[in-house]
């Protein structure tokens, strides 16, 4: 896992400050603040209900926070508060500069159109109007996520779970985004399929210099993919730092419990 060097690297890509989401009186997530830098992979871990998905959705503009701000450095190098942007701008960001990989591929794919069209959609959305070029790009991306070229016209219903997940990744990466959100991308996959996906993600993240925010309850996934980690409990970030430091020398009682609960194969 390598971070990108030089340039605007020392300026954060995403700045999260005091982001809070309340569901009525209940806390979804509270006062979360952190900076994410280009090329950095941040894991958000915690058990179900700890608020990690709520936080992810607040960052990815899928859920409006109750208070706090989330700012993103766009390609013009301007820091913009996501929630002061127009919906059109936010959605544009979502399908060009960002990606979102859902736990269930059916949530992120169009299940009734071919793999090629699934990958090509974002290109067409930003104005690509040459069928041949779109198809070439789709073919290239299917290859990069290890889907055989002759499956390009099959729709994802004919794909296995692991293939669907890889297709979802290709669909997201085709516009060369700079920031990818992932919600339990390996959840529900059996271990060999999961290993393949993790290896693929690891390679893509390093090759493309992507910034990633990944939600996972699997500490092994966090260790393999992330540079930094946030541990959440009851909607609060209770511990954060270098991934290996937090996992090897956890300070908080809850983090120690999490780490000691890992099954060793």
């Amino acid at each position: 896992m390598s971070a990108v060097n030089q340039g605007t690297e020392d300026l954060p890509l995403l700045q999260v400050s005091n982001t809070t989401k309340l569901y009525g009186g209940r806390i979804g997530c509270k006062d979360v603040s952190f900076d994410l830098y280009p090329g950095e992979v941040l894991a958000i871990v915690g058990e179900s209900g700890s608020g990690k998905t709520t936080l992810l959705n607040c960052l990815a503009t899928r859920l409006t926070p109750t208070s706090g701000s989330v700012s993103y450095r766009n390609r013009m190098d301007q820091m913009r508060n996501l929630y002061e942007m127009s919906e059109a701008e936010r959605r544009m960001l979502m399908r060009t500069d960002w990606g979102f990989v859902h736990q269930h591929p059916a949530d992120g794919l169009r299940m009734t159109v071919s793999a090629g069209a699934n990958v090509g959609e974002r290109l067409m959305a930003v104005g690509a109007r040459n069928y041949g070029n779109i198809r070439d790009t789709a073919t290239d991306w299917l290859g990069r996520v290890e889907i055989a070229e002759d499956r390009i016209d099959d729709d994802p219903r004919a794909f296995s779970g692991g293939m669907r997940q890889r297709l979802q990744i290709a669909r997201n990466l085709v516009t060369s985004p700079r920031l990818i959100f992932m919600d339990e991308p390996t959840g529900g996959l059996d271990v060999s399929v999961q290993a393949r996906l993790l290896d693929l993600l690891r390679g893509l993240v390093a090759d493309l210099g992507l910034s990633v925010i990944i939600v996972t309850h699997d500490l092994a996934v966090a260790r393999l993919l992330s540079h930094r980690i946030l541990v959440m409990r009851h909607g609060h970030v209770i511990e954060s730092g270098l991934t290996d430091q937090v996992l090897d020398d956890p300070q908080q009682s809850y983090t120690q419990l999490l780490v000691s609960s890992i099954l060793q194969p």
Partner: protein
Amino acid sequence: MSNTPKTKILVSDLAKTFTMHLQDGLEIPVVSGVNFSVASGECVVLGGPSGSGKSSILKMIYANYRCQKGQILITDQDEIINVAQATPRRIIRLRENTIGYVSQFLRAIPRVPALTLVAEPLIAQGVAEEEALARAGKLLARLNVPQRLWQLPPATFSGGEQQRVNIARGFIAHYPILLLDEPTASLDAANRAVVVELVEEKKEQGVAMVGILHDHDVRDAIADRIVDVTSFASAA
């Protein structure tokens, strides 16, 4: 303070305590008042029995463990960084270019072949993939890892093979500071000799090294100085 330009690592008044929250907050003091320095081209070996905190000190220098007190200053080109206080981001950069760590155990990554695993630190430092793989191959050959294994993920290798892959991964790139955590624990004599050679080469390049070595022969061969960790035992 002997903070000459040649000093690469300066550890001062370092202390570490584990708090076991799952055991009613039991406090386990590990070390305290750790003081030593390492110069360029020098190999300092931490001495002391198991459980005396040698490994914890090494891990604190690598920022793998946190410390409760003290400083760990290292020179990164013309900057002096206190590892104990540095941001995660700074530490990631240090680990990429400045501090290397050869651990006892290989953390194999699913599906990644041994050769790639060894080449990765070089690639991260910006060496072209082809050249990195060639150098990885040379090093694996030198450590007597059979070529038929190079393209396989090392998860299924024997302990000794895994450790040699790990040593290759640790030694392949140039880091001004290298931490050695029992690199020779399960190696035969021939491979131990290779490690000794590798360490000697690093010394010639001016690398400052801190090591834990239980093997007396290797220790005697490479240690310039031995720092006895028992003197840092926590007074708890």
